[in-house]
């Protein structure tokens, strides 16, 4: 069973109001390790993640998590099944303090001290602003909080939408090590990222989306090594961007 993917999407179609956004997405997230979901703006990455979380409803197709069909489950049930989600727009609760944000994220009720220390080491700003309203945090600090919320308790699968947007290079480094460290544990990660440097540093497998479909799936190493492929899929050349 171990090589059975933790998350499997088959033929997922999603509509938002009158718009047909996803046109049959097939995606596998293997157990353990990091799967990168890449693609241009508007390709449907965020929509895919939201569909997995049940925030949009798949009109057709199925989503299986850990062998279980979660296509029709309510969002809370999906989260309880063991998925943590970092949304694109961060969605920190700005009325609540940083501490309260974290307390809510720890569903067991109490925050594990050791793990909190670890989070503080990665994102020192959170410690400084622990008792401040999250609304006053800077853009990057909100991003840190949003990621911290997802990793404060162990989960089977972590779904992260553009975690490095607006982060300073040093924090991006931290972020990379966070994911590297998480990889050591049993966690599987599905990561959407525009920062190709980061994608290359942490990604094991990769899927590229365009126009509501997955147009390429393979290992990160293959993609990183093939500039023509990058140019075709992502419109970029690695050489120009470190």
């Amino acid at each position: 069973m171990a090589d059975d993917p933790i998350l499997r999407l088959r033929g997922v179609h999603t509509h938002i109001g009158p718009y047909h956004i996803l046109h049959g997405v097939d995606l596998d997230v293997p157990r353990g390790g990091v799967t990168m979901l890449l693609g241009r703006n508007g390709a449907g990455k965020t929509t895919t993640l939201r569909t997995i979380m049940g925030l949009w409803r798949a009109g057709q197709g199925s989503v299986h998590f850990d062998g279980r069909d979660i296509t029709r489950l309510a969002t809370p049930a999906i989260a309880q099944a063991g998925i943590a989600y970092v949304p694109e727009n961060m969605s920190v609760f700005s009325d609540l303090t940083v501490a309260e944000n974290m307390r809510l994220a720890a569903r067991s009720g109490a925050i594990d001290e050791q793990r909190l220390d670890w989070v503080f080491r990665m994102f020192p700003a959170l410690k400084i602003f622990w008792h401040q309203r999250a609304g006053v945090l800077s853009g990057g600090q909100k991003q840190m909080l949003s990621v911290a919320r997802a990793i404060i308790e162990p989960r089977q699968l972590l779904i992260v939408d553009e975690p490095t947007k607006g982060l300073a290079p040093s924090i991006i480094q931290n972020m990379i090590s966070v994911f590297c460290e998480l990889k050591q544990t049993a966690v599987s990660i599905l990561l959407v990222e525009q920062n190709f440097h980061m994608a290359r540093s942490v990604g094991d497998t990769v899927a590229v989306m365009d126009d509501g479909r997955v147009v390429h799936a393979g290992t990160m190493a293959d993609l990183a090594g093939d500039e023509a492929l990058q140019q075709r899929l992502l419109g970029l050349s690695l050489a120009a961007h470190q």
Partner: protein
Amino acid sequence: METRGLTIRFGGHVAVNAVSCAFRAGELTCIVGPNGAGKTTYFNLISGQLPASAGQILLGGEDVTRLPVPEKTRRGIGRAFQLTSLFPNLTVFENVRLAVQARLHLGLDLFSVWSHHRKVREQAEACLERVALADKRHQPVAALPHGDQRKLEVGILLALQPRVFMFDEPTAGMSVDEVPVILDLIHEIKQDRSKTVLLVEHKMDVVRSLADRIIVLHNGTLMADGDPAEVIASPIVQQAYLGVAPPDGAGAGNAEASHG
């Protein structure tokens, strides 16, 4: 434009601490610094969203510190926001048209029909052309993809024709193939020697390619100011900002122990 000892405190926390800096016309200054360094807050002070606790803002030698936001905009301080802020249910064209109309002081015209103002229309069209959004002009903004919204944010700034352009991470979250449109535009503005450009950016390659000068903010304080190459090489930037990070497995093992 110039700031003198510009400071703001939130309770006991000093978010921007006595920043004095002069910006010359025709120069593009990049502002870098870690997250929470006070870059956005510094912009908020200059453009008036936040009131300064101390210090002065001078525009062309005139003190504009206490002017309200709209007045500052009219004097020529233009701003694009880090978190996209547009008129979501209006069309792309209308977003830009409103900016042009504001610049031409037509807002309080009660009894003419808006579509009869040709000049406004034409200028708005021109701005849309420049940010490559002309073909989407009739779409409501809410339905635009993220990248296009960022472009529109810049388009509105263009329509205002300010003397000082302030960009706050204009390319954040943009896919790599979209970024050049914005960068070329900023470059173009830079060519017009009468404009001052301030740019907050975390992507070092962008900073390198555009900046005439870099200032570094850290915990609200101005830590470095000068020539790009020099500043980037300085230890403070290398250490505090870029975080020279030797990739190692030790940290990972350590962390694993702490929660495994």
